[in-house]
């Protein structure tokens, strides 16, 4: 079974500053890793995913994440945030072998301050 720990429940950051949202996972098998964003009263939108290959993954809206197998981490970064990035961000994991469900972390609330 897999599990995900998002180390920060809330991250306030000033507009145009960089941000990193931390995610660690646990799994005994190879995994796929994901970051989703959820705006108020909406569903989940995929930001980016790691399946294999390059450990640096680029996603939408200027976000990127780096897969670190030795540290079992998949931290999300953006070099310069905007007010519109204010949202809830979820890290998720699934097994790469089979149709396993996504397992989500508890989320990190990113608040961008003007």
């Amino acid at each position, binding site marked *: 079974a897999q599990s995900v720990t998002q180390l920060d429940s809330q991250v306030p950051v000033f507009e145009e500053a960089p941000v990193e949202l931390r995610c660690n996972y646990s799994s005994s098998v190879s995994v796929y890793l994901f970051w989703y964003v959820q705006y108020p009263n*909406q569903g989940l939108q995929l930001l980016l995913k790691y399946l294999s290959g390059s450990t640096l993954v680029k996603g939408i809206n200027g976000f990127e994440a780096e897969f670190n197998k030795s540290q079992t981490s998949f931290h999300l970064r953006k070099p310069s945030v905007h007010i519109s990035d204010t949202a809830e961000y979820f890290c998720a994991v699934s097994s790469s072998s089979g149709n396993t469900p*996504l397992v989500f972390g508890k989320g990190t609330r990113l608040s961008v301050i003007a």
Partner: protein
Amino acid sequence: DAGVTQSPTHLIKTRGQQVTLRCSPKSGHDTVSWYQQALGQGPQFIFQYYEEEERQRGNFPDRFSGHQFPNYSSELNVNALLLGDSALYLCASSLVGVSYGYTFGSGTRLTVV
């Protein structure tokens, strides 16, 4: 191309009642998964349907049941509602065997009073 469609968007039910939520998957997808997202929490996996059968199930009681129709659409039924069932219920569709291709709907907000 329509994505995942869920209905209704909101509903209010009384404790002890039963509720049915509906989901139409993205075109070309054949697998539907349901998640419960309580306030301030991450989504929790309820179950997954493929070929009209429940294939995987999370840690949810039997009060939660589902169905998948031949056109791949799905229903989530919850019986004997409890206050703790209040949550956003998310439907995700995918292709069988492709565990990286989930598309989520906007969810149904259920409030139990």
